[in-house]
């Protein structure tokens, strides 16, 4: 009888502690997610995607080949019930050979609804729907952003119920107060995710991820994300530079945001297939957005 009491007490206390830790981690990630949504609310960003193979030597990370560089303009707004869905468009500005190629994405918070992505292929003169993956379907995986190492899963917001969270450690990291949070997908999500586990270094004051490391099902680190140039823009902290390193292929992509503007007036009609096929319509709306950009 005493043994059962002792066992129950130990189990209960361990469970309470774990639950409290999980609740704190979940609360923190909800705040980070809310902050991330604020950066996508009526946002217009000019960014550069640079991709290369890399090596590490003498404590430095260096490209071992001439990087491929794309300059994009993206517009995004939150839509739908409770602004949980989002519509976004990305248009290639450079290289000139790919100028005008566009990608339109509708992301739905409801995991029962397929996300949708279309590309405009100027050489063929047509819009092409992409099999962009549905996070609720088995065998579904994420889509690369214009051939870079950054995938839609790396940039995803919401779907917090698809993961369990725990805080591994707290302290200072590169001069910032951080909580190191482990994120593990629930079985339904694990079946469709690229990652079996993600460990994130969360700035607990600015509510952004400073660093993240992703692991495969064999617990091997497969990808790493790191940010720099953290700035407060329109009252929201965000990183102007994000680098994703694929530790399997040794390729990295740096996303550098040259111009950012939040709370710009975006006509929802702009975030439609018309912006892909009607270049005059697209340029007219982009000019309006460029005029509002810092």
């Amino acid at each position, binding site marked *: 009888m005493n043994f059962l009491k002792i066992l129950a*007490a*130990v189990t209960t206390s*361990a*469970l309470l*502690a*774990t639950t409290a830790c999980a609740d704190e981690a979940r609360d923190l990630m909800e705040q980070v997610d809310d902050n991330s949504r604020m950066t996508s609310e009526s946002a217009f960003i000019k960014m*550069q995607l640079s991709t290369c193979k890399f090596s*590490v030597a003498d404590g*430095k*990370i260096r*490209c071992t*080949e001439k*990087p*491929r*560089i794309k300059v994009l303009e993206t517009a995004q707004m939150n839509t739908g019930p409770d602004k949980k869905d989002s519509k976004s468009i990305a248009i290639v500005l*450079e*290289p*000139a*050979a790919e*100028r*005008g*190629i566009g990608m339109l994405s509708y992301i739905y918070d409801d995991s029962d*609804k*397929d996300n*949708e992505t279309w*590309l405009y292929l100027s050489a*063929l003169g047509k819009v092409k*729907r*992409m*099999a962009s993956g*549905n996070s609720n379907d088995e*065998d579904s*995986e*994420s*889509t*690369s952003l*214009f*051939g870079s190492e950054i*995938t839609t899963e790396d940039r995803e917001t919401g779907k917090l119920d698809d993961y369990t969270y*725990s*805080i591994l*450690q707290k302290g*200072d*990291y*590169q001069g910032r107060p951080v909580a190191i949070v482990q994120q593990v997908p629930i079985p339904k999500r694990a079946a469709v995710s690229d990652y079996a586990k993600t*460990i994130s270094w969360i700035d607990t004051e600015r509510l952004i991820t400073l660093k993240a490391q992703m*692991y495969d099902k064999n*617990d091997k680190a497969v990808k790493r994300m*790191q940010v*720099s*140039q953290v700035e407060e823009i329109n009252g929201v902290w965000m990183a102007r530079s994000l*680098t994703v390193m694929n530790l399997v292929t040794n390729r990295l992509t740096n996303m*550098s945001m040259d111009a950012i503007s939040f709370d710009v007036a975006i006509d929802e009609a702009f975030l*439609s297939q*018309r912006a892909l096929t*009607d*270049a*005059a*319509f697209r*340029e007219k709306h982009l000019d309006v957005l460029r005029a509002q950009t810092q």
Partner: protein
Amino acid sequence: MNTAIVTLLGVGLLASSLSIASNHDMTDDLLLDDDMDFLAADAFEVVFAAEKPPSLLRTLGFSVQETLGWSKNNAALFTHQTTANAKWAGGLSPSWYLEWDASAAAQWPVTPLMATSETSTASEFNINTLYVQYSVGPISAKVGHYSIGWGELEGAGVLDIINPAPDLTQGNPSAGDNGQWLASGRFYGDQWELSGFYTIDPELTDMSAAGFPAPTIEDPEWGLRLGTQISGSDVSLYVGQFVEDTPILDLMTTSTAANSYALVGIAANKAVGNWLFKTDIAKKSGLSLYSNAAPTLTKSFDRVDYGVGVEYNATSGQQYGATVYGRQWRDMDGVSGALALSMIAPPAITPAMDMEAGAMLRFSDSYLNDDLSFTLMSTGDLSGAMVMLSTAWGYRVNDQWSGELNLTTAKANADSMYAAFDGEVLAVFSVKWQY
């Protein structure tokens, strides 16, 4: 007893903490920088900013391409071409947009595929794209030289028939300009779109290198498309009048013919997770072949074209695709077996039976980066008189350099009209430098 329970709770908390701490594989303090951490001063955007090309080349595209084509049966080069290309696109005013893409090509002396004498150096200038687009309210209008894509199945010829095929006598299915002079308009509704085009001077596949004159075309081409989006799916209806992109040939009279025909069709896709399913169906009425009654007369008949395709995103950036398609000919009585000359122009093959079929397999990684792409295409008539297999490999070394290799092989029965093409292998290699 209470003290014991408090102690045990403490043990439980400690056990819990140890459990959490051992739930990851990092033995070091996670707060310490590791050798792959970098600070803002070491950030990559500084490095990459220096890699950008000069400002002029960021908006003005420029490329130079060298192409070599070799024929096994002729044991000689049949094409050697150097092409320089420039392009620009941008808004002219809030409602006007201009895009142009022009190239100049020099063809060096080689043994032509269809002749024995050597040609001299030649040059040509091509406008690949030149259009202005105007947008007001829900309407957009576009006039100039450009491509329009119809249907879901690229390359199957079911509905993607508006643009003339490239110069297939060069043996390179991806070479050349494939737009034409068009006027088109679109009306954008909520979740639907109506578009149409018109051209008074339809362009056809260039067969001049084979020594055949271009046919006289008397009818214009026009078409209408009504498209709508249903969650996870796009559906389009088509109607139009077209002229066959590849003229039919008659070696006896060295004549060509390209008459107009009517088309009705439907195309649809459906995305399910990482799968995309596609289908095109078209009925073409009024197509022509030479009649048995007289070599120079053509007979009208109908054909139903259809195809299905599937694409799969295997992992990030990797795509697999497969397409099968068929053509069902109707009312073939009284049609002569007019010879089809070009072994590399599948639509020109006169059917020995009343059905043709083909299949394509595609693989690529990094969909827009073209790091590596591969296409395998098989086509031929179902009698087995000839089966053609073509493959294309593309590889982009970096933003500036890329290469492509096309191989086409044919196997033909010795007693068929295609006997001369048995065992032929055409190889076309191109290397391209671009900004």
